[in-house]
């Protein structure tokens, strides 16, 4: 049984003139962090909303933990942080979590124990009595994350979870997510922050114009560029460049390093031998890999 499964899930508006999502197939194993990437309007949020029955599919099927998404029980073991959530400003954090916890079917006595733990986890325990209308965007986002975890879900859907959160807050959210992954939870993330996604995700899929254009392990997206950055001690650059010229290696000159096209490890070892033979001090050798951002921009353009 998959955590999430979709078969040709499709959502079209206005009689098919607007294709938000077309024939989306996905089989997601339990216990992994999966990220869905794509430009604005690609259909990322549409997919989450379809799974949670916030919008109705035009065609296709979806399953959460084997339950049909049309059945409300499919949402019993899910948590959700929406992109632009509107939390009731007249409640404080404790009341908000209690109210929505009860809606998720959590008994009151469990909530009384769980709410302080969650507020501590998202670093809002000192603000638990403050009305939500006085919360900053980052605080609301952290509370939204706590809300997504209130029913101890097996699958957590996070739509732009670090939106509006400062760098420290992002690190904290990331730590929470990794902790949840260690507990065997499945986490589904929609995000624009590619560096975050790269750090967190086990699998990634890229959507464009409502269609999936690539899906795979995160490592598949971070391929070697076949380039190495060779950094030598200051003043020895000329010697390094002459070695590279000697070996007919294409490279770009920088201050005290060169970014060289070295296609295989044998050639790399030869270059290192030559550098050492000339008593040049090597400060670093780094394989240059493409980032997710590089890949994303290339594939989207």
């Amino acid at each position, binding site marked *: 049984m998959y955590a999430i499964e979709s078969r040709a899930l499709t959502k079209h508006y206005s009689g098919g003139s607007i294709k938000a999502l077309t024939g989306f197939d996905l089989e997601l194993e339990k216990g992994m962090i999966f990220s869905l990437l794509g430009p604005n309007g690609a259909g990322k949020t549409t997919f989450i*909303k379809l799974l*949670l*029955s*916030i*919008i*109705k599919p035009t065609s296709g099927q979806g399953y959460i933990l084997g339950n049909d998404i049309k059945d*409300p*029980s*499919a*949402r*019993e073991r*899910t948590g*959700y942080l*929406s992109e*632009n*959530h*509107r*939390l*009731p400003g007249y409640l404080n954090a404790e009341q908000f979590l209690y109210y*929505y916890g009860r*809606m*998720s*079917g959590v008994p009151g006595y469990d909530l009384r124990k769980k709410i302080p733990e969650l507020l501590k986890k998202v670093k809002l325990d000192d603000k638990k009595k403050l009305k939500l209308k006085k919360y900053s965007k980052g605080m609301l986002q952290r509370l939204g994350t706590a*809300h997504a975890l209130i029913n101890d879900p097996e699958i957590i*859907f996070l739509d732009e979870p670090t939106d509006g959160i400062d760098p420290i807050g992002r690190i904290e959210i990331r730590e929470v997510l990794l902790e949840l992954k260690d507990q065997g939870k499945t986490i589904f993330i929609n995000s624009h922050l590619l560096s975050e996604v790269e750090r967190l995700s086990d699998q990634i899929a890229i959507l464009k114009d409502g269609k999936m254009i690539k899906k795979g392990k995160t490592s598949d997206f971070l391929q070697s560029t076949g380039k190495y950055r060779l950094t030598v001690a200051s003043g020895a650059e000329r010697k390094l460049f002459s070695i590279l010229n000697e070996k007919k290696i294409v490279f770009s000159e920088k201050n005290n390093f060169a970014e060289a096209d070295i296609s295989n490890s044998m050639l790399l070892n030869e270059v290192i031998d030559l550098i050492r033979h000339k008593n040049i001090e090597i400060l670093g050798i780094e394989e240059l890999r493409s980032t997710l951002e590089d890949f994303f921009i290339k594939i989207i353009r």
Partner: protein
Amino acid sequence: MFCISLIFVLNIKVAGIDSGVIVNIFGNVVNESGKTNGMSAEKILGYIQSGIAIAIFFVSLFISLFTVSGVFPDLLKKGSIDLIISKPHSRYSIFAQRYSGALITTAFVIFYILIFSWVVLSMKFDIWNLRFLYSGVIVLFFFYNIFSIMTLLSMLLKNGVISLLLTYFMVFILSPIIAAIDRFAALEDSFYSPLVSFLNFCLPKISETVVGISDFVMDKDISLYIFSGPILTGTIALIVSVYIFKRSDF
């Protein structure tokens, strides 16, 4: 506060004499049965109770509509609806909880005042007129019709203020005008005459309902016609609202 002040404000004294009762309101003797051709205590109580029932009708209608006007528009706001629909409840259940919540709140407001005034008046007169108590059901039915229409407007317009203003307009302005046009047959020969009659049948009839409440409390027969049309309209509006809510993408 209303209930406490009611005890003092009414200031009714009802005393039995050999040939009848003396009813004293605010220090003035309004009835000396046996001595004059004055009204019976039952009738005086009936007038007081129908006055209170009508006041409750207007006040609770106005306040309750205002209070519950945000129930559905707030639910439908982007960012709010996602949180609720993503919970393991069917849309029917979410709608029913919201709708019945508003209805129960209004019923509480109506019957809280009604029961208290009924107890005070009944103790003073020693006449326990249950019809006064049951008049709350008429008020609640009227509210049900209006609230169903307001819910439909909220579903269509997704704006609480506009829905509320349109509902107030319909109940307090349009309905009496339509009723007057229809009653005086002002458009008898007109092409619009059937339309006016149809609207008069469908729209909540505020003036007829007021008379109906009074007659009901005073133990007179009332026409079910004044309720049949609005109940039908309210029920259709409710069904359409549920259908829209069930089918909508949020």
